[in-house]
């Protein structure tokens, strides 16, 4: 098992290198002289030149990239000119908020999506199946920011039940935190919820018609055990893969949802940084998001291996 994990981690190195290169290239290609942006358009020429030297912008591109790469490896993402603080500090401040939001969303999505998918598969072509699959399709098609606005319109503007801005604080009790969380988390979860329901259903349908499920029934095992023990365990791998993929969507969705609900997380940070042309922050936050994605997919890979004994067997044999 540890061999597989190690192998997967080694495979990640080139991907991470490419990620850093892409981020570096994109930010270097962005229009405008960073030194000028920091100092403002009215800054005197000498100051801009001095800044350019200070930032190492006069060096060749490979040199700059090398320096940047070394910095990243040391955990130095540069400094935000806007906040005049190290980017890493800012990121570590915002990241937990986004993880908290994304975690809550994925939890909601899993708790609703997977059971709906299972029931749909077990009652294929029933009214429940048709209704939930239509709902899932609408869920996949819904722009999350629109859903956010509609939720705010109904629950904050019209009914006044829920706050529409910020995270709340534990100082005001758990209720305050939850009431701030519920709309953004639900809003961010709809796409994933729908996705999980669809994939779970498809995967379950695939498994339910396999010989081994009939064989389990032939053993006199009750329907509940057949579905939840045998069918579900066999149907899970594709679902787990999708969970990993969904994190990417969640991070993307967070950009929108955090903007709507003024959620102090990574998404809002990126949008603000792009607006301010705060390159160090853009680079740092984008890199962090990509790293998280890669990390989560590593975890998914490992979970997948755990769920499917055949893969463990084959890779172990291959490794020998």
């Amino acid at each position, binding site marked *: 098992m540890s061999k597989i994990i190690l192998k997967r981690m080694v495979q990640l190195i080139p991907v991470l290198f490419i990620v850093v290169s892409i981020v570096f290239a994109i930010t270097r290609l962005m229009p405008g002289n960073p030194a000028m942006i920091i100092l403002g358009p009215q800054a005197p020429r000498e100051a801009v030149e001095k800044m350019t030297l200070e930032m190492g912008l006069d060096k060749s591109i490979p040199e700059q990239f090398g320096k940047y790469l070394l910095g990243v490896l040391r955990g130095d993402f540069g400094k935000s000119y806007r906040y005049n603080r190290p980017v890493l500090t800012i990121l570590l401040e915002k990241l937990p908020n986004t993880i908290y939001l994304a975690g809550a969303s994925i939890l909601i999505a899993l708790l609703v999506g997977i059971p709906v998918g299972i029931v749909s598969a077990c009652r294929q072509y029933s009214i429940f199946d048709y209704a939930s699959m239509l709902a899932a399709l609408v869920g996949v098609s819904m722009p999350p920011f629109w859903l956010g606005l509609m939720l705010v319109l109904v629950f904050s503007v019209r009914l006044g039940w829920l706050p529409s801005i910020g995270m709340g604080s534990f100082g005001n009790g758990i209720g305050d935190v939850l009431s701030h969380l519920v709309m953004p988390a639900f809003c961010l979860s709809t796409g994933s919820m729908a996705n999980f329901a669809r994939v779970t259903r498809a995967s379950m349908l695939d498994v339910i018609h396999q010989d081994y499920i009939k064989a389990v029934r*032939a053993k*006199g*095992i009750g329907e509940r055990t057949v579905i939840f023990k045998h069918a579900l365990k066999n149907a899970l791998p594709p679902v787990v893969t999708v969970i990993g993929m969904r994190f990417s969507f969640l991070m993307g969705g967070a950009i929108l949802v955090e903007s709507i609900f003024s959620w102090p997380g990574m998404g809002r940070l990126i949008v603000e940084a792009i607006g301010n042309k705060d390159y160090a922050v853009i680079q740092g936050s984008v890199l962090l998001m990509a790293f998280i994605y890669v990390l989560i997919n590593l975890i998914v890979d490992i979970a997948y291996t755990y769920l*499917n004994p055949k893969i463990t067997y084959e890779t172990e044999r291959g490794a020998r």
Partner: protein
Amino acid sequence: MRTGMRQNANEAAGETLLRVRDLRTHFFTGSGVVKAVDGVSFDLARGGALGIVGESGSGKSVASNSIMRLLPKNGRIVDGSILFEGRDLVEVREKDMLKIRGQEISMIFQDPMTSLDPVFKIGDQVIEVLRAHRRLSNAEAWSEAVKALTMVGIPEPEKRMNSYPHEFSGGMRQRVFIAMAIACRPKLIIADEPTTALDVTVQAQVLDLLVDLQREMGTSVILVTHNLGVVWSLCGAVMVMYAGKTVEYATAKDLYRNPLHPYTWGLLNSMPRLGAGKEKGKEKPLAIIPGTPPDLRLTARNCNFHNRCAYRGDVCKEEVPPLIELEPGHFAACHFQTSGGRLTRKEA
């Protein structure tokens, strides 16, 4: 040479374990009702072995699945009865059926590569069936499972309990599956083409195993196959199916010596036999039955075999022939094989 599990069929004592009468299982699809099983009758004595033969698509598997009541959602037993120890399985509630499956009747499937759950250790799968039907402690269930694996000839059973199905060869997997089937000492084992998916060399071993187990435990066996050769050596009685119907049912001996239905004749003629057809130094090619079986959505108005039958008459297109007892214990369904008159079998 295998010494078969002879059934004293219907003539001698043997109390009847399973009595199937006029069983009809239909599938309701958007393009019509598929009458996959449409009139199947046979008896099986306690401890006896019955072979169900017929070409693929004749409804053999559906018939055996019907006994287990393991049908897909669109399939239904629409008529007939399945009396197992006097209880009609058609009427039994699903809840009670759970107690019968795996304990009273168990089943062995065609393809061992797909019939074991790939994500559970085989030990757990054998234990599962034991614990579903018997109150056992963990240790007892474990040792019972090991016992079952030993019986089917798995080497190092203690160790293999922790292996996953993909770590076994096809023949070994089928042995594991048989272990699961016999774990609760069922009264009846339905083996649905248990060797079709296996290598030829392994086929014989698995069949031998089934014979041994049947003898040891006194279990009744239904062997579904398209291989008549296997039936002669293993089964006491034979039911021949064609297009969902029982066309002939007799003891293996009677069927071998005196087959009565034209379809059975065709089936026998198309069987390769050692030494056969070599008279006068000529190689006689294997006979085939011309034509194809009917569409099962369109049957039930006439003799299903009429379009392929060399002996057909007008009545065959008009009426469904009933299954009648022509000789004691020997049944056939043909308009021209009656107590009133018989057909003469032409040389193939």
